[in-house]
């Protein structure tokens, strides 16, 4: 493998082609994924009209996708936006990953590469649409030049430029080279979404065929000649160290090559490297590791709770929001309610466990990793290997789920690089974490203890609200960034930006970090705080003797989008109509990731606390919908992911380590438990909201409010529901 071509300043497409050919020889073809352009002998490389759009002579339009695909569908929907403005023929569009190495060499030409925070569409829609429109104008200009007419006399349509007066036509493939030489227009007009033909439609996801046919390649599937495998044991107590280890039993063991010791992001680790992952993993059991667990060996869920409780009583909290004067507000209130809510730590448990394959050869580093940010992986590998970033090549693969685990931390990329560094030059090593390792060395969704206090006036209107959060900060501990005014936005999400008109409200935050590593987990703060806010709103509605939807409507006069989605979902759920005997419902309304969401859950609960979910009506207003079927899929998936957490999800700490280790004690929802889900898409236009995460937000409170209604008003103020004796049975 050589990087020679990369330094010649050849056009990117030619560079890529040469690169693919050389890396294919090394990587057995896997490096390329499913987008390898089918170049034949003597094929001309595609002309690059701009960084996002390449056109081949055969009219194939290559649209670059610069983030990761983990099932969220944006590998298809983001290019739909480019193709729309480009006036491309969607059937001739091929989607290819933008490469992190090129990104580094080309001054980050593709912008943000991370697929996190439900932001692929909302944060890149403008530059993607502009890239498509710019390329279209350049294709038109090239045709006009050839025909010697004014560009204004030409239109682009379905992969062709047409001269209206003469009805002359040229396909994009014929124009590509000339178009690439046109100056890019400075200003381009973007279409009104109501004129969309490709965007806004349920185009089939482009990765699905490979998945279904068994051709899809994930990080775990990397296959490089001469590859060895590494199994890893990290100190079970976060932050602990390897005091010593004894691998004598591994002498002459079949397939075992080396035992490596290192420092990971969560403490010391020992890795066994062998010629099969199974052999390495089995051998690891026979390595006697003496851990120095340090002072954290005594930490338990109970001791962490004490830390949070102290946070609730603290006097040095940071203020996240203040309207009016809550002290005065409560003094004026006719009725005051107080409650404490708790949500636990949660592991991501993506279906594919953490891992990475790394090969370091003569200063060049090749990485195959399921990552939500291939550029982040590149930086992490470069730092760990001690090479310049331009020398690192991250080969894009599909992710076996991301759920936030594969974004910021990159601890797995770093660890695999450290292990590869211990091996002889040019030895590829595939590091894979056993599920147990994955679950016990996560960056967990933070646990959070919240105290809420609400005051109703004599008319039953919410007059004062105080929310105090005691929870760890992801920003401060994982990203190590200073908090602006002491606030971690995730810790107070949906509290500090609540949409309700309440004359007096105060939200404050007591940052309480523990030794448990925390990170972004699908929907992050919005996976837990809405449970607190919207269940407490129900408590207040009940105390005020009001219907939960009416009570919310009364406070949403100034928040038309929140009100709009609440109304749309209430309508779809027939909120005004009575339910069959024994069936109860709950509602919640939330906003997050730039979108507005609401949910109605209908349940019945028998005297054995068996919960039957009759239906979930879940709705979203994400402004514009780029791929409706994919939005639906995300809502359905959010419900399954959410219900798993709500019913069973918790990771508890004992003697400094996580108690749960695999799916037998960290239970996932299965097919026979999936309730009926009705999706309501209520796009109101005029903004771009996220889709992958926000729908999880209203689910927990809607469901819990329904259960509370079904069980005579007995409040449930912590999750998961199994701890309250509830179980789920098929409706």
């Amino acid at each position, binding site marked *: 493998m050589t990087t020679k071509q990369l330094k010649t300043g050849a056009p990117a497409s030619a560079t890529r082609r040469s690169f693919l050919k050389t890396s294919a020889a090394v990587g057995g073809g896997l490096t390329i994924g499913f987008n390898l352009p089918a170049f034949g002998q003597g094929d001309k490389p595609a002309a690059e009209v701009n960084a996002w759009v390449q056109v081949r002579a055969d009219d194939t339009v290559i649209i670059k996708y610069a983030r990761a695909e*983990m*099932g*969220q*569908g944006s590998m298809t929907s983001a290019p739909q936006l480019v193709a729309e403005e480009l006036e491309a023929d969607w059937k001739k569009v091929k989607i290819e990953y933008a490469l992190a190495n090129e990104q580094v060499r080309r001054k980050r030409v593709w912008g943000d590469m991370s697929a996190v925070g439900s932001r692929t569409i909302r944060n890149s829609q403008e530059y993607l649409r502009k890239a498509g429109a710019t390329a279209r104008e350049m294709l038109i200009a090239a045709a006009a030049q050839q025909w010697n007419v004014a560009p204004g006399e030409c239109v682009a349509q379905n992969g062709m430029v047409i001269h209206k007066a003469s009805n002359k036509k040229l396909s994009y493939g014929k124009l590509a080279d000339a178009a690439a030489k046109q100056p890019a227009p400075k200003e381009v007009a973007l279409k009104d979404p109501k004129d969309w033909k490709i965007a806004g439609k349920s185009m*089939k996801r482009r*990765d*699905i*065929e490979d*998945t*279904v*046919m*068994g*051709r*899809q*390649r*994930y990080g*775990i*599937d990397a*296959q490089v000649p001469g590859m060895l*495998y590494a199994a890893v044991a990290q100190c079970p107590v976060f932050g602990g160290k390897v005091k010593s280890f004894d691998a004598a039993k591994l002498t002459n063991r*079949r397939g075992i090559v080396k035992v490596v010791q290192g420092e990971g992001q969560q403490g010391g680790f020992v890795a066994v490297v062998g010629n*099969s*992952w*199974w*052999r390495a993993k089995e051998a690891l059991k026979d390595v006697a590791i003496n851990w120095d667990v340090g002072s954290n060996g005594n930490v338990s869920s109970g001791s962490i709770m004490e830390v949070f409780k102290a946070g609730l009583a603290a006097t040095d909290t940071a203020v996240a929001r203040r309207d009016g004067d809550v002290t005065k507000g409560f003094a004026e209130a006719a009725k005051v309610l107080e409650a404490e809510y708790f949500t636990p730590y949660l592991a991501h*448990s*993506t*279906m*594919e*466990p953490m891992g990475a394959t790394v090969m370091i050869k003569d200063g060049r580093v090749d990485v195959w990793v399921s990552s939500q940010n291939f550029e982040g992986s590149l930086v992490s590998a470069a730092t760990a290997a001690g090479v310049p970033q331009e020398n690192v090549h991250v080969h894009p693969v*599909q*992710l*076996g*789920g*991301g*759920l936030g685990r594969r974004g910021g931390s990159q601890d797995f990329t770093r660890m695999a690089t450290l292990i590869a560094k211990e091996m002889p030059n040019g030895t590829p090593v595939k590091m*894979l974490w*056993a*599920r147990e390792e994955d679950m016990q060395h996560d960056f967990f969704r933070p646990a959070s203890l919240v105290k809420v206090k609400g005051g109703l006036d004599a008319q039953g209107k919410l007059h004062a609200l105080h929310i105090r959060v005691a929870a760890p900060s992801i920003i401060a501990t994982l990203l190590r960034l200073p908090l602006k005014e002491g606030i971690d936005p995730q810790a107070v999400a949906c509290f500090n930006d609540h949409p309700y008109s309440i004359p007096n409200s105060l939200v404050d935050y007591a940052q309480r970090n523990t030794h448990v590593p925390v990170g972004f987990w699908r929907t992050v703060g919005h996976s837990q705080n809405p449970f607190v806010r919207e269940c407490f709103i129900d408590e207040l509605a009940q105390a005020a003797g009001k219907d939960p939807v009416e009570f919310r409507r009364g406070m949403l006069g100034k928040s038309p989008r929140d009100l709009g989605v609440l109304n749309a979902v209430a309508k779809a759920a027939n909120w005004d109509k009575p339910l069959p005997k024994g069936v109860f419902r709950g509602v919640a309304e939330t906003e997050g990731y730039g979108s507005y969401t609401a949910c109605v859950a209908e349940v019945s609960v028998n005297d054995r606390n068996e919960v039957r979910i009759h239906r979930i009506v879940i709705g979203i207003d994400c402004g514009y919908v780029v791929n409706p*079927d*994919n939005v639906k*899929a995300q809502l*359905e*998936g*959010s*419900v*399954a*992911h959410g219900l798993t957490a709500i019913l069973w999800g918790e990771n508890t700490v004992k003697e400094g380590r996580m108690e749960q280790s*695999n*799916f*037998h004690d960290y239970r*996932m*929802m*299965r*097919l*026979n438990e*999936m309730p*009926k*889900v009705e999706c309501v898409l209520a796009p109101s236009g005029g903004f771009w909201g996220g889709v992958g995460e926000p729908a999880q937000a209203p689910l927990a409170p809607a469901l819990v409010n329904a259960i509370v209604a079904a069980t005579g008003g007995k409040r449930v103020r912590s999750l998961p529901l199994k701890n309250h004796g509830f179980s789920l049975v*098929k409706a």
Partner: protein
Amino acid sequence: MIKLNVNGRARELDVEPDMPLLWALRDELDVKGPKYGCGIAQCGSCTVLIDGEPVRSCSYPVSAAAGRKITTIEGLAQRGRPHPVQQAWMDHEVPQCGYCQGGQILMAVNLLQKKPNPSAADIDAHMTNICRCGTYARMHAAINAAAKMMGGAKSADKKA
């Protein structure tokens, strides 16, 4: 030497008899369709069919599969044509990340072989693999569509 028949191809390998079939397939034979999810027979990502019956290959010794017909997701299509279950899976856009889907599809193939017209309860009882992305509702729909496509028992796929 252990002799395996993987997707119609005879393969030989020299490994420990207790090496789980999953790792023999993935690491020794480069058959990557079966995935590792838990290693303890909980999730079903590693599902393969052995003589048509689903097996969680992470917890199944390679030696026990000797001489038997192993079908993985890669071997389901015939002459490049998707199996009706695969076709239904595409039509309904079932997969999200897709990591579990090879196992899910093989489970569905096995179900339709046993019950060409499965009831909702049959589907519930048979499809026990975990999908972390929550594609369950679409699997239900796709199985019904595949059943229709296969015209009940008449044209059920023989190979798998």
